[in-house]
């Protein structure tokens, strides 16, 4: 009897999900049939005017760090929150690493890779407004340095190179710097997080030092994300 009940329950769950899928299918079908080329004046404006207004070739960067920079502030806060939660949940203690120790070839490879990673991360951050990438992606690449150190050597070593306190400090400085860069707009008589509208000089589109504050914001976000993800990873590793 209980078996039958079990089967029935499973069928019920599948039924629920399938019904929902059916609804979604109809919804998407209706939306799709509605009007395929609905006018999106917002994105049209971004595409046609974005480069002049913000000075960043990478439109995603200009949306992310200028038009909708407030979202990015929330997103940065999100990482900081997660990092703080993890750092809080994991008490400061000795770490337990993976059971296997790596051969020396791994360690050597990692040693070789690390500088490249550093360069890659810096490139992604600094050229975020002219090419794909940006502060977020670059930050993650930078954090991978710490992560690789942790994986190949040990948490102790990784934290000897960069102390957890320092990481936390970098993260907070990144976040504060982001807000302060935003406030720069207020100080120059414009609005909060103003960049394109605050005449910081958009420069020649396509150059590194262009697009006003966007490169600097990229740097801040990069620092923040890198440090935050490194904290998250190390905390997870240290959790025992």
């Amino acid at each position, binding site marked *: 009897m209980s078996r039958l009940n079990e089967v029935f329950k499973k069928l019920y*769950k599948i039924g629920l999900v399938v019904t929902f*899928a059916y609804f*979604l299918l109809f919804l998407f079908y209706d939306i799709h049939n509605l009007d395929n080329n609905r006018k999106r004046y917002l994105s049209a404006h971004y595409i046609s005017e974005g480069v002049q207004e913000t000075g960043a070739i990478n439109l995603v960067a200009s949306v992310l760090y200028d038009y909708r920079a407030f979202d990015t502030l929330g997103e940065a806060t999100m990482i900081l929150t997660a990092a703080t939660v993890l750092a809080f949940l994991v008490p400061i203690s000795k770490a337990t690493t993976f059971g296997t120790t790596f051969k020396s070839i791994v360690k050597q490879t990692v040693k070789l890779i690390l500088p490249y990673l550093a360069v890659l991360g810096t490139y992604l951050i600094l050229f975020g407004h002219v090419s794909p990438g940006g502060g977020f992606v670059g930050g993650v690449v930078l954090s991978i340095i710490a992560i690789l150190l942790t994986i190949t050597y040990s948490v102790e070593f990784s934290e000897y190179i960069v102390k957890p306190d320092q990481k936390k400090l970098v993260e907070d400085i990144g976040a504060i710097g982001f807000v302060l860069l935003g406030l720069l707009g207020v100080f120059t008589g414009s609005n909060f997080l103003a960049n394109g509208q605050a005449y910081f000089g958009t420069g020649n589109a*396509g150059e590194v030092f262009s697009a006003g504050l966007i490169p600097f914001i990229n740097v801040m976000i990069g620092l923040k994300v890198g440090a935050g993800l490194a904290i998250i990873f190390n905390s997870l590793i240290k959790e025992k």
Partner: protein
Amino acid sequence: MEIAYVAVIILFCLGIYTIITKKNLIKIVFGVTIVESSLILLLMLVGYKPDGTAPILDKEYEIVVDPIPQALALTTVVIGGSVTAVMLVMVIKIHRRYRTLNIDEIRKLRG
């Protein structure tokens, strides 16, 4: 490209199904990841225009895909990553306390 929307629906519902049926905590987090990915895919599809180029305007262009969904997607990725990380560390914590990953045995709270 329309079939991609179907894929989104399938992934979304699969994720929801995983969340509501699977007993293993880690499987539930997998479900969360899948739903998240499906939503990012949906964002990309929403922004996509046939024959468009990427929104990096360093050369001549005719049709450019919508940059806004891509920006939203980046934000979503970060948020999803943070939430997943917090969930996973809590899974570890729960395993430390309860010595199990089975969701039916994690029920000290009831009533």
